[in-house]
């Protein structure tokens, strides 16, 4: 960064200082540069980026957040946008690219307004007003309430989210996979969770917003017969994604109600398969977070024996301690034993003889999930309150069968029919590691979208439809404002058009013409009283054919929350950067 003459700043600080328009221009340029990087990856015809790090490791991705995270962005204002993408990724899981593009467009237009002599605070308040109006418009007009959400809608939403990704060509297959996976981990939501969903929708709310919120809540609640309807939650952490290269992406599969763990049998003598007995007693699984190696005394423990024969006893005891532990685990009925630590070769024989599958050095996180899935607990110690060692049969998880499966060159343990809370595993297959990583990211986005849909029960049309509608609406809204915020709101309205524009540009279509047509259709829909034109507000872009169509009917949909949140995040980020008019970088 160029250094303004320190004398002119009038401050004697050990560093550099930039003020006013200089810093604003710098910030906006940086933000635009960041947006330009991810711009081409937006939409169903967006392309991927290949990132190569210092060592030469390759990362191929289409996910905005991942691209930005991997780039070494140095400019502080640009960092705000990178964090913005990260935030969107955490909160919503999808739409990371669009949020960055909107924010940078808002900044660019904000900066132009400042150049025309409008004070940043006016711009900020204008942006806030526009945001509020936009959010309430989405909730009032754009949202489609789906009280009994059909699978079609879910699949469509998942398809929309994955259409831009590497798995976009096989959307039918993967959207089904994503929807089934999310549905399989359905759990009853607690009151706190429900409050959480509602809060997610509102946030910075005004009066109109609250109203719409409660309306949608009742709609979602459906017939309230003597109490609120049970709502569900879908913890994505219960969906386990395993990657194994080989085969083709179409051979990825979902193990419904099952769990796969990347571990193999500790000894070859163990069976490769155990299943429940005929009377339906489940296969019991013990999950341990402790060592089944020969017992050794802690550091610094000193035992003094007088009789040399005692040494022999100590040695024998060391072996017996582990043996007894294993005996207790086996007696408790475990038929599969998984541990995060090691298992002594010495002890294998007990397992082999009892026909038990034992796997060592499992991933601890995986075991915790498996414990949840099978209704068991991860046991860290066998000591009880009396100072003895016992193994509580309660800690054992249950399942229908466990099988060791060869995948590619390695082995995995598949646990079928878990008896606890829902759990599912998606095993991804693909040509190579880079592809699998990208499939994983894409699938994660879709899972998030499906989850949001199921939790909020509302959707909006995608493909630039919502943005175009908002743009037309905000233009009209601006004319009702008599203060100088009017101009700002108009700019905000124009800024939203960046999404349909970028979509069209990426598809190599005539962006100006398409967007103009889109806007005119939406204007007609909003200004007409005729019910025939009601559906016009769902018109969006068809990027393959290069025309406009009803995206709701075409099945290009997104969860409403995702749209609202991305608007909110983008606006907040733009405001944060616009407020800056002074930058001091201190020398270290």
């Amino acid at each position: 960064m160029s250094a303004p003459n320190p004398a002119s700043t009038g401050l004697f600080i050990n560093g550099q200082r930039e003020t006013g328009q200089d810093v604003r221009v710098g910030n906006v340029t940086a933000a635009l540069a960041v947006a330009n990087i991810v711009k081409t990856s937006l939409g169903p015809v967006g392309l991927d980026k290949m990132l190569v790090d210092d060592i030469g490791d390759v990362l191929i991705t289409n996910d905005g957040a991942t691209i930005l995270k991997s780039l070494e962005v140095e400019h502080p204002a640009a960092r705000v946008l990178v964090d913005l993408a990260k935030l969107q990724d955490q909160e919503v899981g999808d739409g990371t690219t669009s949020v960055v593009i909107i924010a940078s467009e808002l900044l660019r237009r904000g900066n132009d307004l400042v150049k025309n002599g409008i004070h940043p605070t006016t711009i900020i308040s204008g942006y806030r007003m526009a945001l509020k109006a936009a959010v309430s418009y989405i909730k009032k007009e754009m949202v489609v309430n789906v009280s009994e959400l059909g699978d079609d809608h879910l699949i469509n939403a998942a398809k929309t989210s994955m259409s831009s990704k590497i798995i976009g060509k096989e959307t039918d297959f993967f959207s089904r996979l994503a929807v089934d996976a999310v549905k399989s981990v359905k759990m009853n939501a607690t009151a706190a969770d429900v409050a959480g969903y509602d809060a997610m929708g509102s946030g910075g709310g005004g009066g109109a917003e609250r109203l719409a919120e409660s309306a949608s809540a009742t709609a979602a609640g459906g017939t309230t017969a003597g109490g609120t309807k049970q709502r569900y939650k879908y913890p994505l952490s219960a969906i386990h994604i395993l990657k194994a290269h080989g085969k083709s992406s179409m051979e990825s599969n979902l193990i419904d109600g099952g769990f796969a763990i990347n571990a193999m049998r500790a000894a070859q003598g163990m069976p490769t398969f155990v299943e429940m007995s005929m009377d339906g007693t489940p296969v019991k699984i013990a999950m341990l977070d402790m060592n089944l190696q020969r017992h050794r005394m802690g550091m610094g423990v000193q035992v003094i024996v007088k009789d040399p024969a005692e040494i022999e006893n100590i040695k024998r005891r060391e072996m017996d301690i582990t043996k007894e532990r294993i005996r207790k685990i086996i007696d408790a009925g475990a038929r599969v034993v998984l541990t995060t630590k090691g298992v002594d070769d010495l002890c294998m024989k007990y397992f082999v003889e009892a026909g038990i599958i034992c796997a060592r050095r499992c991933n601890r996180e995986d075991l915790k999930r498996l414990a949840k899935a099978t209704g068991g607990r991860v046991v860290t110690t066998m000591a009880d309150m009396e100072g003895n060692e016992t193994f509580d049969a309660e800690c054992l998880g249950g399942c229908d069968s466990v099988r060791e499966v060869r995948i590619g060159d390695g082995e995995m343990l598949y646990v079928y029919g878990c008896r606890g809370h829902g759990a599912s595993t998606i095993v991804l297959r693909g040509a190579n590691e880079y592809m699998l990583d990208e499939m994983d990211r894409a699938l994660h986005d879709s899972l998030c979208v499906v989850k949001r849909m199921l939790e909020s029960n509302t959707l909006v049309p995608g493909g630039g439809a919502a943005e175009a509608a908002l743009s037309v609406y905000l233009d009209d809204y601006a004319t009702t404002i008599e203060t100088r915020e009017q101009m700002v709101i108009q700019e905000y309205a124009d800024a939203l058009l960046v999404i349909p524009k970028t979509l069209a540009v990426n598809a190599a279509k005539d962006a100006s013409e398409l967007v103009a047509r889109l806007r005119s259709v939406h204007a007609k829909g909003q200004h007409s009283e005729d019910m025939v034109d009601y559906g016009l507000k769902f018109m969006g872009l068809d990027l393959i054919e290069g025309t406009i169509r009803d995206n709701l009917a075409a099945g290009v949909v997104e969860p409403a929350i995702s749209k609202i949140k991305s608007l909110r995040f983008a606006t907040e980020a733009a405001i944060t950067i616009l407020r800056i008019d002074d930058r001091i970088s201190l020398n270290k």
Partner: protein
Amino acid sequence: MASAGPSPGMGPIMVLNSKTQRTHGRQAQIGNIAAARAVADIIRSTLGPRSMLKMLLDPMGGIVITNDGNCILREVDVSHPTAKSMIELSRAQDEEVGDGTTSVIILAGEMLINAEPFVRANVHPTVIVRGYNYALQEALSICEKLALTVDVHDADRMKALVQSCIGTKFSSRWNDIMIDMALKAVLTVARETPTISSTHGGVSDVYSQKMEVDIKRYAKVEKIPGGEIADCAVLSGVMFNKDVTHSKMRRRIENPRILLLDSPLEYKKGESQTNVEITDEEDWNTLLKMEEEYVENMCMEIIAFKPDIVITEKGVSDLAQHYFAKANITAFRRLRKTDNNRVARATGATIVSRTDEIRESDIGTGCGLFEMRKIGEEYFAFFEQCKDPKACTIILRGGSKDVLNEIERNLTDAMLVVRNVVFDPRLLPGGGATEMAVSVGLRKAGLKLEGVQQGPFLAVGEAMEVIPRTLAQNCGVSVIRTVTQLRAKHAAAYEEAEKENGGGVFPKCNWGLDGTTGKLVDMEEFGIWEPFSVKIQTIKTAVESACMILRIDDIVFGSKKKGH
């Protein structure tokens, strides 16, 4: 004060780390294609029966002589990220099916090369990708129609199959031996796995295999330099490179009782640290005596079961050897865990970890003959004539270590081919016949396709021809003439089928290229078949990876390390 953009006085605004380099747009796409072409060109000459070997020198000065695609690419150090991604393909192919590592690279490279005109003509990559995917689905369905099911126990058919796989390899002179060995080894280790019982209720499982064939663990290849390649053999049992611990022990036992241990037969201190302070002379003696008694006890416990052979993964002390020699027991020490597992499976023994827990059922009696043999300068223990061995050792003999290494790679490929057929007994014609059939089929189907993706769809068909083309090239016949003739044959079969059945029926045309002479032959008569799973996997991997690479429009070098 500057009011518009970064004015000249301000200097550039550095958003990214200045170390990073970007290539984007067309340049990136063309660069990627060029990289893929370069990788494919490296190994192009190793396809087919007339293939040549490559000699690779590693930085340490070691040499690798091979024509295995995966093996070559593993040794080549490439820097272009796309080239790296291509090399990964070959690895995935090797791990999944074990064969076709060369074809997958050549095919993927060709897919990208054929996409280049479209990229240059400004066709959107997503359109190309879509066309490629349609073509992939169509190609797979053509393969399904061409496939032929084989009986795994039909020895002649299986031989022909393996023949076509290792025909291209260095060891082709000893094909008969190699084929018999591969077949025998795989059928030995094949084991039925318990099937999921019906109590499950509709758990459809893609991976439920009826057969388990664990070549990695139970078919061990022992390479012994010296002798002739004709001396190679598959034992009906196992063998390992160890001598008996004591020269007085028996060196030949018929129907031995075998005990396997993974615990030491010597005095070992406990896990907890022990310090011994001795104040009394007597105590010292007691300690020594205890150690001896400990070993003696263990030996007595073992001897009580009257085994003829004791094998342990750990050490055997001199004292224990003495006891064993006295009890007429042959002992081996420091055997590898994997070897011990193999012995256990071949002889039916269970590995015991504590001597006080030995049971009669742990003793292995499945072995018919134990014998120590001296090959070259070393002693080897042979456990032969096993009853129903589910593990085996393959002995390879040959001139030098490099030759042996190459033979081992060939044999591994051959065994994997057999394994794939055991899993999925469907076959496709080799010698470029399948590829040509797919190519012709795609050309027919492509013309009916509407929209921009027709071009890329047809391009896939053309790309498939690279296999017969390369085969023709490598055996030195006129490439264009041969490939055109082959194409004509397939197209004619199509016409005929259409005339007779009015279309819709897929013609079975198995004409392909004899890779040695370069003549056109009917694969049905010539007997060159390849496993269905390998072919399918090759096509899938090639198209999918080509799609992935085509979708890239931006390459950033010097990004942060993956920090998740």
